[in-house]
Structure formats: C-alpha cells, structure tokens
C-alpha cells in the first residue's frame, strides 16, 4: 500500500490563542479584559453583533439611543468593560468575533481546544470558522424556563425575558396592555421596564411568594446590595401603581389568533390552582417566564460534571477557581448556576485570574484580589441558592394543564400525549417521552418544553396524586444533551473552515 501524502502525520500547530472565551456577556467580558490585562492573548466568540450578552443587550448604533442606561441597571459597569475591551482589541491582544455561534468545541491534543462556529445570521451566506486555544472558558449564560398552560402558544404570549430582550435591542413592545407573570425576580425588572417604556401593566403575577427569602435572614443580611436591588424594583413598580399578586398564576390565555385576555388563579402551597379563584384580565400581550436555565450543551459535550440547583435546573460543578471537572475548561456566570450579573462579573474576573496563574504567557495575578473575589462569589452564590429555592416550581403546576395544551411548541405535542406516554407506555424520563411522542425533538431541541416534560415524566402515572414528593425537581436524568448548540447548515459545513492541523491526525482528503 503506497502511502499518499495525506497519510503523513501533520506536525502539531501551536494554538492561536492563550484563551478562548465563549460568550460576551458580563462573565465573558470581565474574563476577557482581566486576562488581557495580564498579558494573555484572548479570543471571544459570541453569537450577537455587539458585546453585552442578554443582560447588557442594547440598541444597535443605528437606533441612536442617547440613554441606553434607561433600560438597564449598572450600565456604567458595562460601559467601562467595553472601553477596556476596545483598548485591548486596539492593541491586538483581544479578538472579538461577533456573529459567531459556537456549535461545538473539540479537544485537540492535551492542551488545545478548537471551537467551531457558524458565522452570520440565519439565512443564505452563513459561513464557518474555527479557532484554537490553550485554555477554554465557557460563559454561555442562560435562557428562560417556561411552564406551559392552555393558550401559551397564542401570538402575543411571549417570554418575560423575551419581551425584555426585544425592548432592550429593538425598542419595541409586543402590545400596549401587557400582563407579566411567572416566577422569579426577573418579573419585577421586566414589569418595571415595560411600564417605563409606556406599556400599561394590568397585573404582575408571581407564582411563589417572597416569604421564601425570609427563611434565610443571614444570607439576606450579607447581601444588602441584592436587597437594595429588590427594593429598587419594588419601588419602581409602586410608582407605576403595581403590586405583584403572589401565589397566583396565569392558568389560561384566551384568544383565537392572538391573546385577548388571561385568567389568573390563586395557587395553593404546591402551585395547584384553587378552584373558583380564576379572574379574567383583558390584555393584548402576556410576558411570562419561570426563571432561567443554564445553557450547558458545549460543557456537557466536553464531559463537564453537573449538579442540580435548588430550583431544579442543572448547572456546572465548579471549584473555587472556576474550574469544571474537565482539565483545561473553566466556566463563569449562569453556567455554574443562575445568580445574576454581579455574580457573573465576579466569576469572570476570578476565572481569568486563575487561568492566568497557570498560563506561561501571563503576568502574575494579584492573589489578594482573587481572595476578595472568592468571598464575594460565595456571598452571591448563597443568595442565588436562596432565590432558587424561593421560586422553585411547586409540584402541583401541571394542575393548570388541560390534556389538549401543547407542551412541546415545536412538535405540537400535547400534555395528554405526554401523559399517555408516561401512564400507558411506561416512559419515566424526558428522553423516553421524546422517543414516544417527539416532544423535545424539534427546532429548539427541548429548550422550551424540557423542564415541563421532565416534570410530567417524573410525576408518575398520576400527576395530581402525591403532593409530598417533589416530582418536578427530583425528576430528570441529568441535563439536556444537545450534540450541536445551534443549527449548522450543510452549506456552511461544505465550506472548509480554516482548520488548524492536529498532531497525529491525518488531514481529511477525498479519495479519488
């Protein structure tokens, strides 16, 4: 067998960057500027056209917003990060790849990572890119958790975070009279923003109460900043004449081609609707969400260990240096458990310091700074745990589903079909439900229906029977696994990316 040139080993190519960061939100930005300050070469890959992630999402330059801070808390912190980032981009120490959606990361040898990205917005003309680095930091953030209810697929029903995102970047509202509902502190921020932007908010509906926070007075006392944040949001709502209705939920959205009204019902301790308490509220939009879910597919694809947080979502297991269980992979921000922007900024900076400490090319990081950051991190993580526990969905929420409610929006799989898969076919996890019903098999890959299907699958054959077992948050066989974190067009794959050679692997060539 003569060997063709393509079968000769390719000599190893050193990685292009000391550090690749996936995500340009608070955690990714803080990490990028800190690592660059210490002399590391950094590449930041982010799906958006501008830095900021979801939290600091802001209008495009063409909109000429003179007061972007009107839609934000802590805008000055972001402005400062961007100034530092731009300075490092100017010197060539940081490369910020915008419109780069990383769909997988592969390990190339013992110390190098290759991040593969689809470039450009959806549509013709998407390309592909790949970058290599010695270290990898995942700052992939989160998306919103949804719990289905009858009518939630009507146009005008949008995510609470979705309404916020469209407002922050596009300066638009989904309607003029918007009910805000679900659970978690984000609702207060969303209601405040919508009202400030001229919408009428007839009701803010919180499924839990705020009493859960009071069970942990020491954690609260240690976090006066967080309490102040809550007070600021609360005061803003009161200025608009809004007082959240607690222990209540939107149990139905009404309308034919768009939402025209919602029914708000009182909930019992387990979030089961109390019969006879439904009140109809007219609206032309509903912004609804139940907290956030860490976005983990790149991490789980690399084998990073996860744990279950007090609100039932999965997050990455991280040590006090922000290291995942996979050597060479760090994570910061919501991926390690949802805790807000301040925590993400803290963890991003801390991760950069600890990566620099083991990097040959970096200056010596300030050890005292790392100690202070660790202290802040533990304090904020403790608060995040209190918050997660306070807003954990109660096991009775499936009580507001009717059998014909679509649970999976993409594949249009109803609650009745999911329940039949569980009761009649013996499915007891989301994966088996997917095999029987296609729930979670659509475009979004289970991001929207995952938490609900997990819960219905774990709820056994009689979802209404036992309220003492918390089926929702004890269910689930681990975090969702998605081989690709976004759609990868075949056309993009047919374009060769500038792939670095890898030691010991022959280049891929077509046989004649």
């Amino acid at each position, binding site marked *: 067998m003569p060997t063709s040139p393509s079968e000769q080993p390719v000599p190893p190519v050193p990685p292009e960057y000391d550090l690749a960061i996936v995500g340009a939100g608070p955690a990714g930005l803080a990490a990028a500027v800190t690592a660059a300050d210490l002399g590391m070469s950094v590449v930041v890959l982010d799906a958006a056209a501008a830095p900021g992630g979801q939290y600091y999402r802001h209008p495009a330059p063409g909109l*000429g917003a*003179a007061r972007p801070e009107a839609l934000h808390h802590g805008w000055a912190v972001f402005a400062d990060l961007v100034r530092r980032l731009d300075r490092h981009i100017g010197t060539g120490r940081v490369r910020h790849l915008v419109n780069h959606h990383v769909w997988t990361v592969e390990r190339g040898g013992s110390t190098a990572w290759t991040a593969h990205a689809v470039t450009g*917005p959806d549509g013709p003309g998407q390309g592909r890119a790949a970058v290599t680095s010695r270290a990898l930091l995942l700052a992939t953030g989160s998306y919103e958790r949804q719990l289905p209810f009858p009518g939630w697929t009507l146009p005008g029903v949008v995510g609470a975070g979705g309404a916020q*995102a469209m407002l922050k970047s596009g300066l638009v509202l989904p309607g003029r009279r918007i009910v805000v509902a679900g659970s978690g502190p984000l609702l207060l921020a969303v209601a405040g923003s919508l009202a400030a932007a001229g919408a009428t908010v007839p009701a803010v509906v919180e499924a839990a109460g705020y009493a859960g926070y009071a069970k942990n007075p020491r954690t609260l006392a240690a976090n006066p900043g967080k309490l102040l944040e809550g007070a600021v949001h609360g005061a803003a709502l009161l200025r608009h004449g809004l007082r959240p209705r607690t222990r209540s939920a939107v149990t139905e959205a009404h309308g034919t081609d768009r939402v025209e009204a919602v029914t708000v019902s009182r909930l019992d301790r387990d979030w089961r609707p109390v019969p006879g308490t439904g009140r109809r509220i007219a609206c032309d939009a509903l912004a609804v969400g139940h907290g956030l879910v860490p976005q983990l597919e790149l991490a789980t694809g690399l084998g990073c260990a996860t744990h279950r947080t007090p609100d039932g979502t999965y997050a990455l297991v991280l040590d006090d240096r922000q290291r995942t269980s996979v050597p060479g992979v760090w994570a910061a921000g919501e991926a390690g458990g949802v805790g807000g922007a301040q925590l993400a900024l803290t963890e991003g900076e801390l991760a950069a310091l600890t990566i620099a400490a083991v990097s040959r090319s970096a200056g010596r990081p300030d050890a005292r700074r790392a100690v202070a950051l660790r202290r802040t991190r533990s304090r904020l993580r403790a608060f995040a745990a209190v918050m997660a526990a306070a807003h954990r969905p109660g096991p009775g929420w499936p009580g507001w589903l009717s059998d014909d409610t679509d649970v999976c929006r993409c594949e249009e799989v109803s609650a009745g079909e999911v329940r039949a898969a569980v009761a009649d076919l013996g499915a007891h996890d989301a994966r088996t439900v997917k095999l029987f019903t296609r729930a979670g098999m659509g475009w979004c890959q289970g991001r929207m229906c995952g938490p609900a299907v997990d819960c219905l699958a774990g709820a056994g054959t009689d979802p209404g029977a036992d309220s003492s077992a918390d089926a929702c948050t004890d269910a689930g066989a681990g975090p969702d696994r998605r081989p690709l974190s976004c759609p990868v067009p075949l056309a993009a794959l047919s374009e060769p990316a500038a792939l670095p050679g890898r030691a010991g692997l022959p280049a891929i060539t077509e046989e004649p």
Partner: protein
Amino acid sequence: MARNPVELAGATPGPSFEITMDGRAVPVLPGQSIAAALWSAGILAWRTTRVNGRPRGAFCGIGSCFDCLATVNGAPNQRACLVPARPGDLVTTQEGHGRADLAV
C-alpha cells in the same frame, strides 16, 4: 414618563426604511431585527405551524425557541428575532416547514 420605548431610550434613529410583510409595507428603524420591525407594526405572527397550522411569531426573543422562523427573500426558517432587517426585504408568512417548493 415615557410614552414609548424610543422616547425612553432618548433615541434619535437614522432615517427609517421599508420592508414588506406579505406585500404590506412595514417601516423599520435602522438596527432593528425583522421581528422588532413586525412588532412595531402590530404584527405578532408570521408563520403557521406544521401540524395544526396555528399562527406563531416571536416568543423567547433571543434565538433559543425557533418560534419566530420566517421566510425572508424566499429563504425559509430564519429566526426573525436575530436577523437584522435590510431595506427592501420581502418577508412572507412561512407555511409549516417552509419547504413546500421541494415537494415531489
């Protein structure tokens, strides 16, 4: 008290341009996504589902849910919340998977 988001953000956008939605002219402020432009025109749905033919539009607003898929300039399955609108874009309601033209 701001009456609308543009006022709240103190925005003085550049000159607006037009796209069309099923032939209807929709004004766009520079920098808006297709979904944002449609929302500001009061349009909340621009696709029908594959199974039950139900109307859908933007839901998550950040590219995670794929509810806002639209056909733009004849190319289906584009997330309208992420795709920046460009002058003259022709947006058409996407029926189901949007690939009926491939049916044999």
